């Protein structure tokens, strides 16, 4: 994403972090519309298997994606912690279901590195960069490469 690239050049940017099983990932705050608790899903039959269904977001039909399955990891486990990150993808809202939501972090450009081959089990191509906080490594996801 532009933000990640900018961050390497010098500008600070904010990322919302979330967990996919144990892997900590981040997504640019600017691309996020909102984060919501899962609401009642309507299953769409014959849809791709990474699509969990559709929800009504204030009159808009939003497709909910199982982010775990989309990235080829374990599917999201139903729990009270799971959250729906609604992102704006080419003028359309799409919901990314994640296992658990983390903090918002500010990425210092100096600490962002090129992504390794993989983080946890997530393939490296999904990430724009990796960011090391004091004790953790966050993979910064880009919407362009995961869809």
């Amino acid at each position, binding site marked *: 994403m532009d933000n990640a690239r900018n961050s390497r050049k010098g500008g600070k940017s904010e990322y919302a972090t979330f967990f996919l099983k144990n892997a900590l990932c981040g997504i640019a705050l600017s691309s996020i519309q909102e984060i919501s608790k899962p609401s009642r899903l*309507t299953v769409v039959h014959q849809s791709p298997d990474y699509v969990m269904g559709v929800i009504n977001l204030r009159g808009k039909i939003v497709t909910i994606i199982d982010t775990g399955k989309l990235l080829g990891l374990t599917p999201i486990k139903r729990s009270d912690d799971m959250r729906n990150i609604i992102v704006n993808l080419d003028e359309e809202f799409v919901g990314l279901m994640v296992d658990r939501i983390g903090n918002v972090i500010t990425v210092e450009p100096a600490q962002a590195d090129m992504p390794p081959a993989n983080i946890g089990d997530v393939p490296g191509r999904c990430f724009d960069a990796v960011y090391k906080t004091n004790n953790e490594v966050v993979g910064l996801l880009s919407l362009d490469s995961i869809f």
Partner: protein
Amino acid sequence: MQTPNASTNTNVSIQISSLEALMNLAGELVLGRNQLLQAIGSDDKRLLETTSQRIDMVTSEIQEQIMRTRMQSMGTLFDKISHIIEELARQSGKQVGLSTTGKAVELDKTILEAIGHPLIWMIRKAVNHGIESPDIRNKLKKPEQASIELNACSEAGQVNLEIIDDGKGIDPDTMVAHAVETGLISEKEGLDAITEPEKMRFVFLPGLFADQNAMDGSSQFAGIHEIKACLEKVGGTIDINSTLGHGTHVRIKLPLTLSIIPSQIVKLGEERFAVPQVNLSELLRIPANQVKNTIEKVGGASVIRLRGELLPLIDLAGVLGVARSFIHPQDGLRHPERRRTILDRRSKDHSTPEPDYGGRERRLDQDRRYHAESALNIAVVSTGKYKYGLVVDTLNDAEEIVVKPLGKHLKECRGFAGATIMGDGKVALILDVARIGEISNLKTEHNNKQFETISGSQKAQGVENAFLQSYLFFCNSEMERFAVPLEMVERIEKIEATRIETVGGNRVLKYRGGTLPLIALEDAIRVAPIPERNHYQVICFKINGREIGVLSTPPIDAAQVKLTLDTKTLKQPGVMGSAVLMDKTTLILDIRQIVKTVKPDFFNEVCGNG
């Protein structure tokens, strides 16, 4: 059905006043929300009531106002058409006067855009091909200046459009005759009895005007079936009335808007689906104990006999790949379905001997297959191409729904035209009836008009004469079915029983100035006699140049079948053999032999000939 986002990159011009009205309403809505929050916070029931009332009003007003911004008047389109007519008239040296009414009638922008092309197409054809040149008009004693009327009016949530010209028109009878001639209509039955408007419906038969010189006035209508398809895409209907020499009257009905459509809500388990009302013909409920009698299996597919017409059935759960489930009447819980087909019933009236379960748990008498709740609910739907029954679990109410597009990740999901939000806030999917027909047609290879079946189990015995042939199926007594090769049949007539006379021991029918000898099958072969009826179907054959009618009872069907003829089991003089077609034993008749038995005189004169 087109979803509203299909034209996202087009613009609409709005009057400032209506924008201001919207701003004002948005302000009201904010006030309403504040009140609502306050009412909820203070737990004030009365305030809550007044607030909800206020929000209700504001919401519907906003909706109305926003709908209005999408509406545009017919004026621009009418002006455009007027220019086109002038231009065309000048080029062809014809004189055409246009009169319009209802320029101010408003229509949703999407629909207005969609009908522009069809309307102009029809006007162009009317001027170029329908309207005669001035000297011909003079000879026909018509006014030199031809007239075209263009009327629009809104009525009961619909917009009616009329195009009336006084050109040469087309003769419905000639059209029907041509359709029969070219083989586009194969069924000759009842063609004499159909009304003028029904005849005019053949104008939409694709390929009817392939040879433009075949009949007078055909060039005006060549390709009109495509226009019909265009209009149907936006939920419109078209009717044409025409008289040769007097002109054509086209009536088009259009919905006011595409984004709100009346729909029938159906349910599969707990999931709801919307079927657009335009596609819906009727709703059927088959009680559990009648399922076995009304529904038949043809090949792998189920069909229902509905007023003499065979209607394929599509199981919605099967098409969508939904695991069927049901609520058990005893424990009230949802269980997965064990029945493999919708036909699987064991009602008490038609019970079959229970098989030996061989030690396995024998099902109790309260087996759900006996239960009244297992009635079959069917929504009969039709599109241009298909007509079929959609089997669902429950039929709910009809509702007006707002069509919303599905996201791009779901573009590959066939069978859905979009989504809508139900009263409880949950999303329901809108079924695309045409696509579902397509999907299941691929699966079942089952077509409305034609069914192809062979008996796989009967191959063991008899001669195998497997080739595709057209047969006409009919009944004598209702229990037995017969078939004759279709090419033997001259025509089929529906007659009243009172028209049959018995003269000198022979049944005859007064017919077109002559008499048609009638025979019944039981006169010639050993079959159950034909029951007394008010009406009979007479199948006419031509034997050695003379016509003879065979009495029969409906249903009469024509179909192409692959026949595996069993020439041993049920063979008798006049019967070539039997075959199992559509799961029913059918006797294939030797009509010449039957006539020979009953009316030997048919063969006496030209003995041994043909």
